């Protein structure tokens, strides 16, 4: 990082945080602190929803996934538009008319207090864990760029986020999200343009596409039916729909965003915007990762992208043959790529076949060498399931992007993390205060008392996230880790809201035990089967509904005969 990069980084962050705090003035009542006084326009909510979901993980991990595994991850988002339509038609008007602070408050209106409490606790467990992972992402950035210890940077970022969230409330979070998404869009476009310009002059953009495709890095759609494959068209459409129904319909960190809307229509528009914009945005980010792959066809990348781990295993005697195999495979792949392009331009089918085989064979050897290096990390005292996916894009940014742009990309990552984390912590504090503290421990407090309680809850959850962030390193690719943690809890939450909206005869006790059964089914699936995490939501939701219907039938309560 040069002086200019530091200046860009510092200025961007200061402006974003300062603007958010400026727009949050007057958040001096509980309504304003937690719901922004129901004053937000659709575009602010839309960008805030997008920013909360995106966070730094979007840049760090998604691009790395495309580099290593291609663009299949985009299918994960195919269920999102369907989920948004369902939510706009059902959940949004109900939550607005129920006049609630949290999604779980509605469950007491519909069922009973114990169902609300259980749903709140499940949310707190799930979102508390995710908040830690969100904080972990920028710690990677600082450890790579500055060489700071990850734990120290987690603490630094966490304390900053706690301060910012405690002072500004949801309004500050939302308006800073707007600024951050604008910078993210700008940063994405500039990064791709720069990347294409960095390619060798002999490689045109269509050539880059051809080489990425030949290596399987542009595999946006996979139609195979495989329950154990995380990303296929079917898991995206079915599992993704359930996951996003859960995330946007039952997760307070998102529900709180559209509860701040001026009207039902404004909230609906914010979700419709995400339904339309999210897939192209993810496609674009993955495409950047695929182009980073093409860039590294002609510039030899390190065996591992995390410099600290690479330095550590380089002292091992077993590393030398791995490095030699890697260098030889890289040279073969580079030559095969050039030969493949030549055959392609000459329209020689036999040549293309032959060179494609050589190209993929060399890629296979490179992947093999990288896997061996990762195993060396594990055998030399590091993580057994080590993965450097999260370091690929950052390594490229810091080594090859021009001065100034490095600072901007790092600022984008920082700002996005701060915002996403702030939103999560804000929602955790809201549920703790509204659904637990105010409901069970202090029912008759003043508005000022609850405002201060909200701020103390914010501090508590920020500290909790900091502690959990220390586990991030053991969870592999961050974006998958975040969604895996969510999937352990979302299914049962979705199930209880499905019961609330679509099964009028079901009452509180049936819903409560349905949730417990759903959670048990998800954990059993997690620990006793190899089924992909995207299906946990479907399984959990189905189990909640089935159990509640059976209990309702058995009880045959008087309500049923109404």
């Amino acid at each position, binding site marked *: 990082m040069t002086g200019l990069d530091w200046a860009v980084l510092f200025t961007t962050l200061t402006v974003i945080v300062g603007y958010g705090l400026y727009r949050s003035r007057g958040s001096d009542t509980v309504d304003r602190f937690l719901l922004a006084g129901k004053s937000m326009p659709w575009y602010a909510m839309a960008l805030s929803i997008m920013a909360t979901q995106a966070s730094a993980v979007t840049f760090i991990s998604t691009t790395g996934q495309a580099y290593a595994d291609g663009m299949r991850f985009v299918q994960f988002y195919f269920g999102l*538009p369907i989920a948004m339509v369902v939510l706009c038609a059902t959940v949004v008007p109900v939550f607005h008319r129920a006049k609630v602070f949290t999604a779980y408050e509605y469950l007491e209106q519909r069922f009973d207090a114990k169902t609300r409490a259980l749903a709140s606790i499940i949310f707190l467990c799930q979102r508390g864990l995710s908040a830690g992972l969100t904080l972990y992402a920028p710690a990677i950035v600082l450890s790579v760029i500055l060489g700071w210890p990850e734990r120290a940077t987690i603490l630094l970022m966490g304390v900053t986020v706690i301060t910012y969230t405690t002072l500004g409330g949801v309004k500050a979070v939302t308006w800073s999200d707007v600024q951050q998404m604008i910078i993210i869009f700008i940063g994405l476009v500039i990064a791709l343009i720069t990347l294409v310009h960095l390619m060798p002059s002999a490689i045109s953009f269509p050539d880059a596409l051809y080489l990425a495709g030949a290596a*399987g890095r542009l*595999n*946006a*759609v996979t139609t195979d039916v495989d329950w154990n494959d995380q990303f296929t068209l079917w898991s995206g459409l079915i599992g993704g729909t359930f996951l996003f129904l859960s995330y946007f319909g039952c997760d307070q960190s998102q529900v709180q965003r559209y509860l701040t809307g001026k009207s039902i229509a404004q909230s609906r528009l914010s979700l419709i915007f995400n*339904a*339309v914009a999210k897939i192209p945005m993810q496609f674009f980010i993955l495409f950047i990762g695929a182009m980073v792959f093409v860039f590294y066809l002609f510039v030899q990348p390190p065996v591992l992208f995390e410099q600290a781990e690479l330095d550590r295993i380089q002292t091992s005697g077993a590393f030398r043959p791995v490095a030699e195999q890697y260098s030889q495979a890289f040279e073969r792949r580079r030559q095969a790529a050039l030969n493949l392009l030549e055959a392609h331009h000459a329209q020689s089918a036999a040549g293309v076949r032959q060179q494609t085989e050589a190209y993929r064979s060399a890629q296979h050897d490179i992947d093999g060498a990288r896997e061996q290096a990762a195993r060396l990390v594990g055998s030399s005292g590091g993580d057994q399931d080590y993965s450097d996916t999260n370091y690929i894009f950052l390594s490229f940014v810091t080594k090859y992007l021009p001065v100034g742009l490095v600072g901007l990309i790092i600022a984008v990552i920082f700002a996005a993390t701060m915002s996403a984390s702030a939103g999560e912590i804000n929602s955790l504090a809201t549920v703790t205060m509204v659904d637990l503290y105010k409901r069970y421990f202090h029912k008759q407090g003043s508005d000022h008392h609850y405002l201060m309680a909200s701020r103390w809850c914010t501090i508590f959850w920020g500290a909790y996230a900091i502690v959990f962030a220390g586990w991030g390193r053991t969870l592999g690719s961050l974006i998958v880790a975040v969604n895996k943690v969510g999937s352990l809890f979302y299914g049962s939450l979705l199930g209880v809201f499905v019961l609330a909206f679509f099964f009028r005869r079901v009452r509180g006790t049936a819903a409560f035990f349905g949730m417990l059964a759903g959670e048990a089914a998800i954990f059993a699936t997690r620990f006793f089967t190899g089924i992909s995490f995207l299906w946990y939501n479907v399984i959990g939701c189905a189990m909640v509904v089935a159990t509640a219907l059976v209990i309702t039938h058995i009880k045959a309560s008087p309500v049923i005969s109404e």
Partner: protein
Amino acid sequence: MPDIRDVRDEPPPFLGTWPRVYWAVIIYLGVIILACYGFTRALE
């Protein structure tokens, strides 16, 4: 001062009704998936 929790609903600013907006989103999704499928097949 009006109650901040007053709930208002309005038609969408385009396409006239919300169900039409929802159908437009679903059709858009179909187009996106087909485009991604074509992208994959054309470049694999």
